[in-house]
């Protein structure tokens, strides 16, 4: 039972809910009293409680003649307002949480991209899911490291050429540079086996590089066109050899391109002939999935061609020329990447 003495409300704690809590406590007590006309003094919480500067004890309401309904209505409104306020706060906090998570993710992406010197396309990263996604991000990280090592080697080559070091030391640098490219081809083969479309998409490269993409990488013939002007003067024999190499390269490229066209055509036929349930089976050409597997060998053959072309070039050239060639190649791709960054940061019309 209630004591007839003044009832306390609990000491104010932080937060705007307490008055309401105190209110309900008060209301319970009031109800349990049963008689609105009791003379026992009751505490009525003032509605102006937001500043918290008031003490828990407010008006000393003696008059029991105040209409019960009005009080009840006011209390109900307060309860309602408090409830809405609580809900709003909950929603706001949830929003904050999701934004925070998103921020962390964005920061990670940015970090990764900055590491690799890539321009990260909008929304690309989030699409990859499942095993492929894991392997692809692993590949991207590896590629990031590869790019760092590449930059370091380019600097070393540049310094070495300017310092006019001997052929023996230069040969070591050239061999290292070549091995580095071969390492990339190995990485790509592994990645292609896991997700060939990803490697072929070129999304792991910058936009400007992607513009020149051919079956998962650069065109060997383009490479020669870029290199040769940087390597002059060449001997007669070298000129002939380079010319032959350019021609063979072009022929091999054309053969591979035609093979790719054929693959596209066959795949289209297979898918067109199939039922929705089996996604393409053509008795003459087999299943569509087999065709997709062939893509892996195309990437492999294209990389093989790149490797052979690089090796043949290094056979034709002297050590010093090969060093200059590798430097020129590295700087060419660096410039392409810089172009991509420029383009990414171009001033855009405010929408």
């Amino acid at each position, binding site marked *: 039972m209630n004591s007839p003495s003044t009832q306390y409300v609990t000491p104010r704690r932080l937060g705007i809910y307490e008055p309401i809590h105190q209110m309900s406590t008060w209301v319970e007590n009031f109800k349990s009293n049963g008689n609105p006309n009791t003379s026992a003094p009751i505490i009525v919480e003032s509605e102006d409680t937001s500043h918290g500067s008031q003490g828990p004890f407010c008006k000393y309401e003696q008059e029991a003649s105040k209409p019960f309904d009005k009080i009840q209505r006011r209390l109900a409104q307060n309860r309602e307002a408090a409830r809405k306020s609580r809900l709003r706060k909950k929603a706001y906090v949830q929003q904050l949480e999701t934004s925070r998570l998103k921020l962390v993710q964005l920061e990670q992406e940015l970090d990764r991209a900055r590491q690799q010197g890539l321009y990260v396309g909008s929304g690309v990263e989030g699409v990859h899911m499942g095993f492929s996604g894991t392997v692809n991000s692993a590949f991207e990280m590896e590629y990031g490291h590869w790019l760092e090592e590449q930059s370091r080697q380019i600097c070393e080559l540049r310094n070495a050429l300017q310092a006019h070091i001997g052929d023996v030391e230069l040969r070591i640098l050239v061999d290292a540079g070549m091995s580095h490219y071969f390492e990339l081809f190995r990485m790509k083969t592994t990645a292609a086996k896991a997700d060939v479309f990803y490697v072929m998409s070129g999304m792991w490269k910058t936009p400007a590089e992607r513009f020149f993409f051919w079956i998962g990488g650069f065109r060997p013939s383009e490479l020669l066109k870029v290199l040769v002007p940087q390597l002059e003067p060449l001997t007669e024999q070298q000129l002939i050899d380079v010319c032959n190499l350019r021609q063979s390269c072009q022929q091999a490229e054309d053969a591979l391109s035609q*093979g790719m066209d054929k693959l596209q055509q066959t795949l289209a036929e297979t898918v067109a002939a199939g039922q929705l349930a089996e996604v393409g089976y053509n008795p*003459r050409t087999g299943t569509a999935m087999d065709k997709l597997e062939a893509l892996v060998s195309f990437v492999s053959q294209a990389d093989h061609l790149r490797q052979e072309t690089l090796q043949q070039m290094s056979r034709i050239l002297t050590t010093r020329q090969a060093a200059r060639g590798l430097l020129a190649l590295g700087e060419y791709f660096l410039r392409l990447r810089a172009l991509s960054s420029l383009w990414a940061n171009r001033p855009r019309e405010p929408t």
Partner: protein
Amino acid sequence: MQQAIPYKSWQPFDPLSHSSVSTSSKRAVRGPSINTTDVVSSMVSENAVIVFAKRGCCMSHVVKRLLLGLGANPCVYEVDEGDDEARVLDALEMIVNNNNSNGSHDDRDRQKVQFPAVFIGGKLFGGLDRIMATHITGELIPVLKEAKALWL
């Protein structure tokens, strides 16, 4: 570019076999179900350059286009999946190993044959890898000329 002179117009060894004509100008022949080994050996020995490949394989298409682009006119033997494939592989391997080991069958030296397989001048040359590599180094054309697959 001048049209390459076909080395030989090949007639089916077994009158019972039927040849399926491919869309390209070369002849694509379907091997008969009997005497696959004999058919295969005669094809290998009679053609300067012949490509054995699975039907519809796009890699074999690459080999074909490359050889055609050089002026060689390769004969193409298209193999079906299943038994035919196994039989032809066996036949090819026998040919290869007979050539290599002069009749003695040493398991260690048995070379595995994979499709697409290119035979030049009666001997196994290799797959697409080897064709590409030798073409880049410039070794392929002399080999083709020596086997009389190229006349220019």
